[in-house]
């Protein structure tokens, strides 16, 4: 007999239906008001963030109101790179995956090897469907032997539940019962120390653990969108406001400031990280199969382990590994001293690709773009360029600026 335990579990539809029942608190808003009454909901930190807003500029992230810019984008950027930036990241989707076979299920679900993930560790994961196309990516936390948390940019409950058939696991959407705060920047460890997160300096990169702060449990992970100079705090919604205030109070002497979604996007582009739904389409939302991507096409080959046991999409990915890429996710630097707006990436008269996210990096003094390029333009060192239109009064000036391929994240500021 194989030890492939999932084969021995008949589909227990009742148990499956139970696991499909999300946390009842998740959609509690319905008891208060009908779904159409408010398109964009408030996060548990909304009032705290609003108190910091000098601009009253807001945006919509996954159906929640988040600050676009709180003070001034250049000030916020400076705080991120030279002090520490506080942000509300509660609109991320969070799933609790628990049960006797949680590890076995996730080994089947994710493309990478999760066996190395210890309790209180984190691991970036990508997950695919059977054709080898990426459904989504996220950060996997291991909270206990049989308890994991998956944090993603887009909702994946249906795919998680469908994939969980046959496994003794429970999948719950805990998105709205878990608030999240990001603290990024070189001084973030010192701020946490000052705020009585005792021993936070011993927390290794990508590790996480529980802290008791003012009698409130806070799960802190040394993770950040832009690499290792930051932390993310996962707290109960009712405690979130207090933790936020605590950090602001203790961080003020270090120059801590609350920041908005625009800054998060800039940091993400500088880190070269693709965002689902913006830089790539998940396999279930790509209308044309051509616009879905394999992990290799997204530059996520490091998150795929073809040599371990079976996982969803493995056979297709084996074939895809040696097949030519149809498009490739790349980072471009455009040397122009002020923010430019553009979409197309040109190579001579040809269209080489599309810029999916762009940002102006004040540290580097240049524009950065995350782009989906046709691979033939990577092989041949042809001159890539972008075309931007700039307005001067009633005149429109067209500028053509060379675009250079950048490998890896842009080097940013001092490491902590």
């Amino acid at each position, binding site marked *: 007999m194989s030890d492939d335990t999932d084969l021995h579990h008949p589909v227990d539809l009742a148990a499956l*239906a139970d696991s499909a029942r999300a946390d009842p608190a998740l959609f509690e808003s319905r008891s208060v008001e009908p779904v159409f009454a408010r398109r964009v909901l408030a996060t548990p930190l909304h009032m705290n963030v609003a108190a910091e807003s000098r601009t009253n500029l807001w945006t919509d992230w996954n159906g929640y109101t988040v600050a676009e810019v709180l003070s001034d984008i250049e000030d916020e950027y400076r705080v991120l790179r030279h002090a520490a930036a506080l942000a509300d990241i509660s609109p991320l989707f969070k799933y609790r995956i628990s049960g006797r076979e949680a590890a076995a299920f996730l080994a089947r679900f994710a493309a990478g090897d999760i066996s190395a993930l210890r309790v209180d560790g984190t691991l970036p994961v990508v997950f695919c469907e059977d054709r080898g196309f990426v459904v989504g990516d996220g950060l996997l936390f291991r909270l206990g032997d049989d308890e994991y948390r998956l944090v993603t940019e887009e909702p994946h409950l249906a795919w998680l539940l469908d994939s969980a058939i046959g496994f003794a696991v429970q999948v719950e959407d805990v998105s709205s019962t878990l608030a999240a705060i990001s603290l990024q920047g070189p001084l973030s460890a010192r701020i946490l120390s000052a705020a009585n997160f005792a021993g936070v300096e011993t927390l290794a990169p990508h590790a996480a653990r529980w802290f008791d702060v003012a009698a409130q449990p806070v799960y802190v992970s040394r993770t950040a969108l832009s690499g290792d100079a930051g932390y993310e705090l996962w707290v109960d919604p009712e405690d979130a406001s207090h933790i936020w205030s605590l950090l602001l109070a203790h961080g003020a002497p270090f120059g801590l400031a609350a920041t908005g979604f625009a800054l998060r996007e800039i940091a993400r582009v500088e880190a070269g990280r693709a965002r689902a739904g913006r830089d790539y*389409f998940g396999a279930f939302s790509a209308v044309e199969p051509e616009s879905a991507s394999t992990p290799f096409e997204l530059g996520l080959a490091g998150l795929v382990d073809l040599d371990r046991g079976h996982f969803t999409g493995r056979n297709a990915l084996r074939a895809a590994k040696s097949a030519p890429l149809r498009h490739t996710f790349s980072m471009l630097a455009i040397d122009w001293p002020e923010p430019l707006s553009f979409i197309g990436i040109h190579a001579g008269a040809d269209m080489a690709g599309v810029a999916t996210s762009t940002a102006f990096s004040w540290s580097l003094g240049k524009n950065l773009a995350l782009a989906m390029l046709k691979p033939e333009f990577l092989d041949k060192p042809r001159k890539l360029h972008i075309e931007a239109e700039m307005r001067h009064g009633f005149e429109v000036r067209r500028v053509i600026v060379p675009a250079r391929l950048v490998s890896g994240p842009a080097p940013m500021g001092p490491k902590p």
Partner: protein
Amino acid sequence: MQRHDVIVIGGGLNGLTAAACLARAGADVLLLERNAGFGVAAGYDVAPGFRMPRYSLGTSTLPARLVADLELTRHGLRLLRVDGGVSLLAGGAYQASYRDGIVHRRELARVSPKDADAWTRYRRDMLAAAARLRPLLSRRMSDPSKRSIANIRRLLGAADAFASIGATELHELTRLWTLSAADFLSDYFVSEEVKSHLAAAVLSGATFGPFAPGSARLLLQPFMEETGAASAGAPAAVLALGGPEAVAAAFVAAIVAHGGTVRTEAEVTDIILRRDEARGVSLANGEEIYARAILSDLDLKRTFLTLFPWKELPSGLVKRVGRFRLRGVTAKINIALDAAPLFPDVPEGCPALLGVTRLAGSLDEMDRALDDWRDRMPPRAPLIEALVPSLVDRSLAPEGKHVMSVCVHGVPEILHDGPWTGARRDELAELAVKRIAERSPGFRDRILALDTLVPPDIEAEVGLTSGDFAQGEETLDQMFFNRPFASLSGHETPIRNFYLCSASGHPGSLAPGGAGADAAKLVAEALGKRGIYVPA
């Protein structure tokens, strides 16, 4: 002697489209409509001051492409987009359709968080399938057994369109065209409410229920005109300001602006034939009008069986036409209301109530309703659609009062035990009112006037054989190159200069106005070849 380049018989959507396209191309067009209003778009006063569409529900399915090409907004058309509608389900439950992706997902999550997530995949697959179907709808069909070079090229083109589809996708497409709606929806959704809601939204006018193999393709209809990403919500309902009659008026304005002529209350009784060639038409008043090309927007049966002496038609045609299935399924009930109807099951202020409100029942009930219809039973628990256009268009009713346009589906043309009588009509109206009143307290007391039209009434007044709005049942054997049947599928007929431009031809109701636009192109080419004018 009156002479025109083109005569279009019948002012339905396809007739108006054909006339407008040809007028725009420079032809001298005359459109002849038997009634004072235009086809099912005709409006009337159900009570003084209560204006509403007499036959159609009142939502618009006009393709955006047609509106733009014919510049209908310049000719007065104003379209309003509202949320897609509400289904009132068993046990006081409801499901609404919202255009906004996030709100729509939350609406689905009310009954099943998993289904909320599945919506994106469902919408993705519908958008992909619609994108595949669209080119087939704008392609002129032709008899596959006819071997002209142009014909073979067309067939190869169609084959090529399919060959370029990947194997997985082809598999998906096949599922959509063979599975039942219920099975197809179960691939995505677990909640009965969600499945019933999505099925009810597409089953209006269908002659088969959600469990009938092939009914899955109906689910595509709302997505045919849909743009936007998979993350968006449900397709919108579109209403024209002033109702469907305003749509017809915009077409007429476009035809006239391009030098065409539109005559109402001008009934064509015969086609004037000379040596198997159509030369003109004679009207009920004895008038004779001549033209180089004649297009008929009447359904297939009415076209061939009433406009021609049967002995002049090619042998076999009369019989073949007689076998074409036209089936009425829909009764129309027009109601003037003293006040807006209330639906307490739905939270107050729900914007989806501006779209169509459906009394849907379960998938089983909807399937059984169509079984009843097949048995020619008077409906017991039919799918009922109600639209209150005066909620968004205040000009339709006096201040504070409303008109309600109701379609009852699954209504047979002839009952198993005899024809529709006045008493039978009243029973049907009573059933509809009772069913609506069950969900809308006080509804009965708000009724100021009520009119009931069953399929034979619609046939008698508009001319649609059997009261079939689709001008021919839309099952695969009567679609694409089989519509209306193989030898007649390219709008051309055995009679020279005589063309069929109604929805009895491809693409039928899959693409409203499509048959008219396509027939117009064919006629323009034919006239152009004969040097009459150069098509634009």
